[in-house]
């Protein structure tokens, strides 16, 4: 089943890479450069999953996660954080914000696909 996924990252290269990987797996992908842009896009578009960087200008990934969780239509949408930090306290922050899971950067394409498969089902 094709799903719609939004990738939020201030690095255009990163977005392109994620987008390419996910499109290759048959998904539709939306892009946003930061939390604010993501929220704007998500006002009009429904998605099955959010993959967001943590450290971004304007609005970071944790704030984006909290903002989405505050909206009823995103209460259950899977949100996966892209993080360079695997320290336990950083993970706890993500969890407290309401994220569903995390991926440590850098990652391989198959790691990304594995998370998506696990979250969205086959």
């Amino acid at each position, binding site marked *: 089943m094709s799903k719609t996924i939004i990738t939020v990252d*201030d*690095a*255009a*290269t*990163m977005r*392109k*890479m994620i987008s*390419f990987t996910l*499109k*290759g797996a048959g998904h539709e992908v939306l892009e946003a450069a930061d*939390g*604010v842009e993501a*929220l704007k896009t998500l006002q009009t578009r429904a998605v099955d999953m959010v993959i967001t*960087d943590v*450290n*971004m*200008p*304007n*609005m970071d990934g944790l*704030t*984006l*996660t*909290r*903002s*989405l*969780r*505050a*909206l009823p239509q995103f*209460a*259950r*949408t*899977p*949100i*996966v954080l*892209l993080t*360079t930090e*695997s320290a336990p306290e950083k*993970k706890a922050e*993500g*969890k*407290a*914000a*309401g*994220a*569903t*899971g*995390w*991926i*440590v*950067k*850098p*990652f*391989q394409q198959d*790691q990304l696909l*594995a*998370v998506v498969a*696990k*979250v969205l089902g086959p």
Partner: protein
Amino acid sequence: MPTNEELQKQLIQDLLVESNEGLDRFDREMLALEKGQATPDTPNIIFRVIHTIKGTAGCLGLSKIESVAHVGENLLSLLREGKVTVTPPLISTLLAYADALRAMLSSLRDEGNEGSEDYSALLKQLQDLQAASSATSTETIPAPQAAAPVAAPAALPQGWGLFDDEPAPATPAATPVLSEAVAPAPVIERAPVVAPVTAHAPTGTPATSHPPGEGGARATSAADTAIRVNVEQLDKLMNLVGELVLARNQIVQHSALIQDNSLIAASQRLNIITTELQESVMKTRMQPIGNVWAKFPRIVRDVAGELGKKVQLVMEGNETELDRTIIEAIKDPLTHIIRNAIDHGIETPEVRRGGGKPDEGLLILRAFHEGGQVNIEIMDDGRGINISRVKEKALQRALITADQSARMSDREAFNLIFLPGFSTAEKVTNLSGRGVGMDVVKTNIEKIGGSVDLLSEANAGTTIKIKIPLTLAIIPALIVTSGRERFAIPQVSLLELVRLEAEQARKGIEKLYGAPVYRLRGQLLPLVYLNKELELGGASSTGGAVDEAVNIVVLQADGRQFGMVVDEINDTEEIVVKPLGKQLKGLACFAGATIMGDGRVALILDVVGLAQHAQVIREVRDRSMTEKHKGDARASERQTLLLFDVGEGAQMAIPLSMVARLEEFPRSQIERSGAHEVVQYRGQILPLVRVSDYVRTVAETSASGTDLMQVVVYSEQGRSIGLVVGSINDIVEEAVTVKRDSAHDGILGSAVIQNRVTDLLDVAAVIRSADPSFYSSSRTPVGLAA
């Protein structure tokens, strides 16, 4: 879709661009940091640049860049947390570090690999700086081991995970949300204050583990959604939109000629989008007037303090928006008006107390939008303008003659203060006596297409009303043709369009002392022939015999209406106003130029300048003065009156609505029919009545020097009668309160008009006594409408 290899190449290209841009930014922010010009966001920006490079490089398998980036990231993370002191060595090291990253990126671009340069010395420096700061701080010994490259990511078995894997591996977010739904009640009972959050968070309720709305509120706050844009950039954008509007006009014009449906549809769409774009761009340049006003409280405080006055400043309509170019243009005039109001308007507390006013004077600034214009009013409750003193001053400075002074209406007198070189200040204070007078205020406001009006009442205060356009750049305009040239008339000055067919024109256009007028719904409209004023010498008449239709554009300038006769009325268009070169700045008739749909230039008429050139508004006449007089108007009603002299020194008036025409006849044309004097007029016999015979006055003298006789033609029920008068003086619109004290026939009463005692002629009575049969068929009484 590209293959993986192609993608990799593409992504590396992207990475190069992105990273180099980032590193430039890194340098700039670093320098700002060094100069102490950093913003709170500077450390974040610096950190993020490196963070992004590291993350992207890692994903692309560029392990050397990644590991070098990683070392710097650790140090920058401490910098961000304020745990590293900014020192010159730190800055230098970090700049060298940025150069190292650049070198690797160049190598990647040129050689296809990250290069063989050894950066261990630099990395050691970074680590030392980091260790130095760690020694002083209690926390953090994060990643010296990360300097050993590559391995880190691979060391993690999976590199990802789900937070809920341990308790519930299935639908990750759903479960906690459901449990949340049933949980609240007991929790609230037990721990009403802080417990809910702390109790929930560890057990994993992602949905509401923080107060809802917090994130949402941040998301929409202005700080997060607004960006700063260079004003020059906006101006450029505005210019481009201006060009687009012109191109759009051309396309729309052409597509109308070519009968192609899809082209027409596309051009219509282009039309709509352009308009929307134009509006949006215009909005980006809008600023609230409050931006200018913000400095006024301080000015009022200072000026009042210096003069020993007490002033309360009230500002209404701060949020009223204006184009920034206009905001700029009104800044100084407004400041001057405010200084003036405090200096000349508001009295000292002692004087105010003596006049039964509160010690504190009131100064009100009001701004609001109305009819596509912005209105700004500055009101004070001071002493008002002393008319006789203003006149005296104007006389002293030879700005007016004694005769003008005597005839001047209040409003005309008020407007004297706008004359160049006028100042009513008895002693020149250092505040307003600096050579910048109200004339400069008026000129500056008129320069941007605005107008200034002044109302004042002795001891009650003064109000200055300013009307200015919302924007200067793009305006709606009516395009007309005259003498084969096209001209644009700004829509704000336009009242209506009148077209007279040849026959109508011959009858409708009259001459009043050689000046053509047209009666528009009872009001005499002075006519200005554009081709004559501009010396175009075009085909159409200059007001004489006409055998073709006449197009009249009814305009308003400075509160006065006039009709402009043009050859052709074309269309209404949005035009882009472009300034004229300095060689043409002296031409008051033009406000600028614009480029038309066909690419040719058309001049934009300056309606006020043109009216002055045509001498239609030599003096400012009274039109809106009565607004102020609403209170004392009670019984009176505004009327347009024809003023004339019968004998020397006796001015009389009749309502203009009773006047059919104004004519001049040579005395030699008078014939007698029985007891009556008559003239032949339009194939009929026009009985004449000499007004001087019927009202108590000196004999008719004024016109005796000439052979011409002034006749006011009065018509009713198809019958006409000519009232012979001495001279016709003027037409005014005035609120007249009739004093019914004159007991004699033929006079309804008297009033003061233009500072002259004026008798109101009882036309019906005069006619009745001259020709009792005139009303035999109709008993309609004629008189003033009071």
